[in-house]
């Protein structure tokens, strides 16, 4: 009896969480005459395929829209932002964890708090900055600004990660005659590869999810990222191509969700701020 309740509850939560994705799936592959039947008609069941599934919407998405272009744009921004974030946040996290002593922790907290300052507070001053730099409607604006979101969180992640890396190996290397700098350059990178990987994945997911700055700075359809182009540019005037829209949402969400699942525990360690002692 208790087991039944457990499974029922688990299914309930899955249904609530997963329902929009089921709806994306079924919409993406339904024929139009099966899709656009008003919900007034209680005899037509919208939850299932009443006609055979079709690839018509997928073909439309890949053949007649800028979807592939948006994916390419997103990848350009992702690569640039990941490189900047790793180059800046990893040394900073190491410095705060190992080199700066007691005030490192406090400074780390300070940097983390800047993560709480939201894009919706900063997009107006950035509009001015981007205009000054002549970066309007350019991926350059996103590459410059996205690290403001990734660096604070990733510095914090690396700092937290290093707490779980024993100090012995670095100490031993110094006893063996390495200078402090040589330890950092030659020994440390091997130790923190998992931490760097987390930074890469987190930056990647963050860039894919970002909407506010992209909406503010990118106006041409051919320069949009996926998360901007799909909801904004796939809607032509008042015409929503729901099949293609949902196909795009589905194809973007699922790979992201898989990556996210693999790394969720590390992200959560960052969010819980030490309120959870492992």
């Amino acid at each position: 009896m208790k087991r039944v309740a457990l499974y029922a509850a688990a299914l309930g939560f899955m249904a609530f969480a997963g329902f929009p994705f089921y709806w994306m799936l079924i919409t993406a592959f339904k024929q139009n005459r099966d899709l656009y039947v008003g919900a007034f008609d209680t005899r037509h069941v919208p939850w299932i395929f009443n006609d055979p599934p079709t690839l018509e919407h997928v073909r439309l998405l890949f053949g007649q829209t800028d979807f592939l272009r948006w994916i390419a744009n997103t990848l350009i921004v992702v690569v640039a932002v990941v490189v900047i974030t790793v180059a800046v946040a990893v040394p900073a996290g190491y410095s705060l964890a190992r080199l700066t002593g007691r005030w490192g922790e406090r400074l780390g907290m300070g940097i983390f708090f800047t993560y709480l300052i939201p894009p919706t507070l900063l997009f107006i001053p950035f509009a001015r900055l981007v205009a000054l730099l002549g970066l309007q409607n350019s991926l350059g604006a996103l590459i410059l600004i996205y690290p403001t979101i990734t660096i604070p969180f990733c510095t914090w992640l690396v700092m937290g990660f290093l707490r779980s890396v024993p100090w012995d190996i670095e100490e031993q290397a110094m006893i063996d005659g390495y200078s402090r700098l040589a330890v950092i350059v030659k020994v440390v990178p091997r130790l923190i590869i998992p931490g760097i990987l987390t930074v890469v994945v987190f930056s990647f997911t963050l860039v894919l999810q970002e909407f506010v700055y992209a909406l503010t700075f990118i106006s041409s359809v051919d320069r949009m990222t996926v998360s901007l182009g799909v909801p904004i540019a796939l809607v032509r005037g008042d015409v929503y191509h729901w099949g293609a829209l949902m196909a795009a949402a589905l194809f973007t969400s699922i790979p992201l969700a898989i990556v996210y699942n693999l790394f969720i525990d590390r992200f959560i360690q960052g969010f819980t701020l030490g309120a959870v002692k492992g």
Partner: protein
Amino acid sequence: MSLRRRFADREDLLGIAMLAPALGYVLLLVGVPFVLAIVLSFSTATAGSLSFGWAGFANYAAILTDPIFRRALANTVIVTIGSQLLVVVLATAAAQVFRAAFHGKRAARFVLLLPWAVPVSLAAIAWTWIFDSTFSVINWTLKVAGLLHGWLYWLGEPRLALVAITIVQAWRIFPFATVIVLAGLASLPQDVMEAAIVDGAGFWRRLFYVELPLLLPVVAVAVLFGVVYTATDLGVVYILTGGGPANTTHVLPTLAFQRGIQGADLGQGAAIAVFLLPFLIVVAIAMLRLARHTEVGST
């Protein structure tokens, strides 16, 4: 020993050198814009030109007497509180389920985390379709179940639209809160739980008198992030309703965007966005207190 050699062993200098790029980035591209956000709210700046005129409190006077702004402020509070109440209930319940071992748990966890992983704009467009005035599957299901006799225009009626927005925000954030609460559950002191069982406390007693009080700091962390994510979110409202019908469902971020970016009135947009600060300050103070509290508790 050469100078270079000495630098290579000076921890403080190395520390500063490695920290400098991150500090520089954060100061220049978060700190300066943050100050500029406040300065702009006292200015007559527009998006078209780079001129900059002092406006005093004119922008604030204008928005405070503007019913659309007041509505947006109220909506932000309503949606934030409403969705976070839902999140607390859903997340503590879901955590109780997902701490147990059962078949297919990995798949279940994958589905549970989907709303948190998906880009907010794509989730919002899916919900827009789900709430469609003609094709809403929710209406169909309610009608077939005999629960609905008229018709629900989810995004066309101000009150219903706020309900829809609140549901979407709760849906988006509860998986994240669940995982945080689960992490908290895993770290509860086992001896306390065992003592409660030995003393004969049943499931509900243990839940309400032992676990939930111990979990409070963790639930608080989840809610604090939830407040920031909801109050400052632009995507959900922008895509679901665009602030409509008739500017009744705006929240602060969408109104700031409409006035500041689309309407090119940077000064007024900045003034609207500044009203997000109280939310953030409350959250920051609460987090600092929590961090200090747990530090004291653990040492």
